[in-house]
């Protein structure tokens, strides 16, 4: 879990596997740099494969930016738990967090690239989702 002081859109990576989440975050850091707030979470509360809402909430907090946060997820539960985490956020933050319909690794790199140029949350989401377009 790592972050950076920035007003750029934050990126959160959520995978069932903490290794995938951490690895994807490493790729973002190495390819895009440190100008984007970034956090990752993976695994269930017992340390097995899965995701958990508390971990996602913590990651959103870590990567928080006034410009908002884009969440990249892998499969099923990662998406539903991320949506649940968004619903549990304070109302003023809820509208500034989006879950992207994009592949987790590629989407994270693209979203971070877009964010590093100072793009809006909507533009970051759109760019990440271009992978499925």
């Amino acid at each position, binding site marked *: 879990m790592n972050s950076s002081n920035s007003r750029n859109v934050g990126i959160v990576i959520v995978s069932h596997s903490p290794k995938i989440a951490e690895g994807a975050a490493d790729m973002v850091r190495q*390819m*895009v740099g440190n100008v984007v707030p970034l956090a990752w979470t993976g695994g269930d509360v017992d340390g097995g494969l899965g995701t958990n809402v508390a971990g996602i909430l913590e990651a959103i907090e870590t990567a928080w930016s006034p410009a908002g946060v884009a969440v990249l997820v892998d499969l099923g539960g990662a998406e539903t738990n991320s949506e649940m985490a968004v619903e549990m956020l304070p109302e003023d933050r809820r509208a500034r967090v989006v879950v992207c319909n994009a592949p987790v690794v590629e989407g994270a*790199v*693209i979203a971070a*690239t*877009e964010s*590093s*140029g*100072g*793009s809006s949350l909507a533009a970051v989401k759109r*760019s990440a989702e*271009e*992978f499925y377009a």
Partner: protein
Amino acid sequence: MHDAHASRAGETSVPLTASAVLVNPVGLHARPSVKLTQCAKGFAAKIEFALAADGPWTDAKSPVKVMRVKAPQGATLHFRVTGPDAEAALAATLALVHDGFGEA
């Protein structure tokens, strides 16, 4: 390596054009694509590039579109730049290509 003098227009509405050869061994793969889009995003100008002088043109500010071009080493990147800071934008993008995106 590049011909920045190819077209120099006084009017900002007329695109500035120039080309540069991709020198880095792996071509325009993921990392250079990210660097090109980051560089392009630093300018207000509309920055496009193509593998041929007559297009099809790709928005240099779109990381996904830039990666999709899959430009290989040795390919010539033709740039077409329009906007108030077009000259600086063109110089910066050409420099990036010329330097092999810091890889070569």
